């Protein structure tokens, strides 16, 4: 890679893909997120860490308006995706979610075949002009999710018949197939064993080439392994946000230090 390309890439990486300003979230009377400001960079893995109930998943779900499906949730503040407010009335949350994909804690393949699971997004968004193109999209998504070699002979078998780790990679392939710009992952490895976890982590590292990734995790080792940026949430506040290496070796806030050394949590 020549210097120019490298410089261009660095610049792209520095430009915030998502920028949140003064975000507050309420679940009925419960103030779940308190005045959070954060800039998420492109082609970077950002980890959200923090004790259970600190609001990291809630905040993650704000980024693609998944909280819209919860009646009692109310969001204030501003979240910009490429400079556009995603809570603007002009924005269609459905379109937004095609751009900001999501992978959930528990693998949730649809009760359909592997092929239909992956082609679900491209089909509803009309991304393929014909069957061949659709097959191409499915294959490349499965390859990206490092699942192609394992399932290429049984694309018509039900997705629910795969193992837990394969199911989660199928869900990642499903998300990748819609060609999102940002991929949100809500504790994607918490239901998986260490081997499957290692595969997913490797995958996350590869996906960083093309996407901006945000991952919520309870495992600090995982955050340290896969992310470049880390945000520490505590009781609905964003306590500290910075370079992963910095947060884990030299935290500025005493609460961050207490959490990563295992004294609170």
């Amino acid at each position: 890679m020549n210097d120019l390309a490298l410089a261009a890439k660095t610049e792209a990486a520095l430009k915030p893909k998502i920028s949140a300003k003064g975000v507050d979230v309420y679940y009925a009377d419960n103030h779940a997120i308190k005045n959070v400001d954060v800039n998420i960079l492109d082609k970077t893995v950002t980890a959200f860490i923090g004790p259970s109930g600190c609001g990291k998943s809630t905040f993650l779900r704000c980024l693609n308006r998944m909280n819209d499906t919860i009646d009692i949730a109310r969001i204030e503040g501003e979240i910009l995706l490429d400079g556009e407010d995603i809570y603007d009335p002009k924005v269609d949350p459905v379109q937004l979610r095609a751009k900001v994909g999501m992978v959930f804690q528990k693998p949730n393949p649809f009760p359909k075949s592997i092929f239909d699971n992956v082609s679900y997004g491209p089909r509803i968004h009309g991304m393929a002009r014909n069957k061949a193109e659709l097959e191409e999209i499915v294959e490349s998504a499965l390859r990206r999710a490092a699942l192609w070699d394992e399932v290429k002979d049984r694309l018509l078998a039900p997705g629910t018949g795969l193992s837990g780790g394969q199911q989660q990679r199928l869900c990642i392939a499903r998300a990748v197939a819609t060609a999102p710009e940002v991929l949100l992952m809500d504790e994607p490895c918490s239901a998986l064993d260490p081997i499957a976890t290692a595969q997913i982590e490797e995958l996350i590292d590869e996906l960083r080439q093309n996407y901006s990734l945000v991952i919520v995790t309870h495992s600090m080792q995982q955050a340290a392994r896969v992310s470049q940026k880390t945000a520490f949430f505590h009781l609905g506040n964003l306590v500290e946000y910075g370079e992963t290496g910095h947060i884990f070796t030299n935290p500025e806030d005493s609460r961050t230090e207490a959490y990563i050394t295992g004294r609170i949590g």
Partner: protein
Amino acid sequence: MPALWIVAILLALAAAGYLAGRARAIRSAGGDRRNMHSLPSYYGANVAMTVLIPALGLLVLWSLIQPSLIERSIADDIPAAAIGGDTTLDLMMADVRRVAGGLDQLGTPTLITKPAEAPSEEFLSGLREDLGSVGVALASDIAPGVFRAARSYQLAEANGRFWMTIAVLGVGVLGLAAAYAVTNREFRARNVVERGILAGLILCALIAILTTLGIVLSMLFETQNFFSQYSWTEFFFGLEWAPDFRGNSSLSIIPLLWGTLYISLIALLVAVPIGLFAAIYLSEYASPRMRTYAKPMIEVLAGIPTIVYGLFALITVGPILRDYFALPMGIGESASSVATAGVVMGVMLIPFVSSLSDDIINAVPQAMRDGSFGLGATHSETIRQVVIPAALPGIVGAILLAASRAIGETMIVVLGAGAAAAQFNRGLGELVNPFEAMTTVTVKIVSQLTGDTDFASPETLVAFALGLTLFVITLGLNVLALYIVRKYREQYE
């Protein structure tokens, strides 16, 4: 002693046993319940159980077996010469039972000391009047043979009842003594009672299964009877339904089955879309407030008696369909029609489909919907492509359940579609015309069995064959529904 009294005495014994067993267990533990294997009430329950269950079991068995034993021995005593002419053994035995019952009520065993003694003519006609005064009306004077048989029937029954009382109460007392004897603080009363409860649960399950079996068997015997008088090929493959009680009837199931299936089809065409869409609205879109009101209101439909639906069909739906559809289109002038019954039956089935489908749609995990929303699908795309396919096996089950209800429905058809069987010889046009009157298998079962009919002619017995066929069809539908639900459920989890 009447059975009611026996049961009452047994209950009293059980109650006494409960208290005695409990007290004995506590005594053997020195008044400290911590020294006992089980809680005191278990010891009491164990004794009560041992008193009741064997004794009641014996009572039930005895009451079931005794009448048939007595009847057989009496029937053997009736000389073959007494039977004949216009009477059969069955009719005669019915007389014997009635006379014996009357004699019991009269309470005059002193009049006749021995059953074999030949009664005089005037005594018998006097007896007939006496029996009439206690409500046992006889068509003719009692034949001496019948009188003798009735006397021995009466004696045998009294005898049997006496021994039954002794045996049942004896078993109860024995049970009480045995259970009381084994009761001490180390006896594992709790385990025994648990096993007793398990046995009770199994018994209840068995009763439900055996009843089904009994229904099938009773139908099977009568059906066999029917097919011994009427050709089965004619019944299953003939095309005409024309019963004639003077004989020479055409009794084919096809015209009736056609009516049943046609009306059911229309009913499902009404009920399935409306019920399913209502369920989707309620489970996916309706606010919790709306749901709390709308769901019970839809379910009210399920509580309306079908005869009321029938009235609705007769006075409202039928005339409307005739005046606004059939007459203007010139394809029918009767208010009783397939369409009337079908539409009203469909309305009746809406709550079945919607309520079951609603539960099934709600059971689809939220993670499925989240996954779909997360990929940028809209709400209706999610419902169409994820929720409904996931819920499909359950929905198919609900539909098949509704179908078996439709096939078994009678009242709505009688009032809505009339009682005339479909006529195959008038051509296809009339058969598929929804504004034509038609009738179903169930209606014909009722009409063949009502009125003053003789239970031996094919015109009557055909009802059992019809009923059995219908039973097999609905059973098949239910089995199919279960199979579909089970097969696809595995795939889903």
